[in-house]
């Protein structure tokens, strides 16, 4: 019974069409529509440009900061072995410079490869290119001091000057001869041979004890220290203000 009251689909569609046609004039776009849209578009353009400018600025600044602040000329290594006793004790820190060139007597941080395995070592430069280094045995089989180019080296920082004798080595061009300060135990150029200068990654400038106090490297030439180039007040006394001011 209810079904007969329902209009057919085509009638519904037709009714909707008629309704929509007669409603056609009821909807009018607001008069200022185009102007509103154009104004919004302009505002959005300006906003985007500003945002892009600010964004670029932030990116540039942060990359400059990342490059500038993250870089330092120094790094610190904690001594893991007793190869450098008594100069550097186990667990003490050694501050190395990345920029200095290794000189005679310098403590260096070197990357060496033995039998295909690479490891890092802290050792002392005892002879450079062209030098002849040896520890000649005396009559009783012991060696009093390392001899470089015919001159015995004093090595005042050593606990025990006596070293097991080792034969004469002439250091080739571009290489250095490294010896650990603890001659009895150190694994150095006596066993692994000379080390190329390119494999030296740092030159020690100071030693830090367990409490963080810095001290100079015994037996090494003096180098610039970290923080020397910081722009702080001069270490000299500041001159007092002038007392003869006009009244």
């Amino acid at each position, binding site marked *: 019974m*209810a079904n007969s*009251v*329902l*209009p*057919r*689909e085509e009638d*519904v*569609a037709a*009714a*909707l*069409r008629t*309704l*929509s046609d*007669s*409603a*056609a*004039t*009821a*909807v*009018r*776009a*607001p008069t200022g*529509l*185009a*102007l*509103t*849209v*154009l104004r*919004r*578009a302009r505002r*959005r353009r300006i906003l985007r440009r500003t945002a892009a400018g600010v964004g670029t600025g932030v990116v540039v600044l942060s990359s400059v900061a990342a490059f500038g602040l993250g870089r330092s000329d120094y790094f610190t290594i904690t001594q893991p072995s007793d190869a450098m006793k008594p100069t550097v004790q186990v667990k003490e820190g050694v501050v190395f410079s990345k920029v200095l060139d290794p000189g005679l007597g310098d403590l260096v941080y070197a990357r060496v490869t033995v039998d295909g395995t690479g490891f890092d070592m802290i050792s002392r430069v005892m002879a450079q290119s062209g030098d002849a280094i040896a520890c000649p045995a005396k009559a009783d089989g012991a060696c009093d001091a390392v001899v470089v180019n015919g001159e015995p080296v004093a090595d005042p920082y050593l606990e025990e000057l006596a070293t097991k004798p080792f034969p004469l080595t002439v250091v080739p061009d571009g290489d250095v001869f490294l010896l650990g300060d603890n001659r009895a135990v150190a694994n150095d150029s006596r066993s692994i041979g000379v080390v190329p200068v390119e494999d030296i990654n740092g030159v020690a400038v100071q030693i830090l004890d367990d409490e963080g106090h810095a001290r100079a490297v015994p037996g090494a030439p003096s180098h610039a220290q970290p923080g020397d180039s910081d722009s702080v007040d001069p270490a000299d006394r500041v001159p007092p203000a002038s007392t003869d001011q006009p009244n």
Partner: protein
Amino acid sequence: MRTSDEERFTAFVREDGDGLLRFARRLIPDPGEAEDALQTVLLRLTSHWPKDNPRGYVRTSLVNIAKDRTRRRHLVAEPAETHRLAPADELDHAEAMDAQARLDSILAQLPARQRVTLVLRVLEDMSEADTAAAMGCSTGTVKSNLSRALDKVRVFLAESLTAVKDT
């Protein structure tokens, strides 16, 4: 946008604005939301201007907005109760306003996709294939959506008729 472009854009909106707003009103239940949608689409159009077929672009965008508007339910305004007596400030348009209000109340019964299908197929006289292309669905979906929409409208019309008879 150059000044000449802006002038052409203004001319386009003056020419087609009424028709496009009417289209938006049919697709979207809430009158305010329909106007918002049209403005959004026109704003998008300005960044593509000049466009070969600006009218087609706006209509397609409106269909997309209308059929997807229920996807983010929390952002969708509840359609306001449509008043049969819309503010008829112009007496000449009283009948048109009345027809518009009735159309609104009928279309308000339908969910978004059924509503869009009905508007495109019946009121805009588009073919099944065109409607399917505009809505990004198959012709079968268009058919079923249309038939469900017409069913609902039919029942609603019958109910409103009996309601009128009863009172």
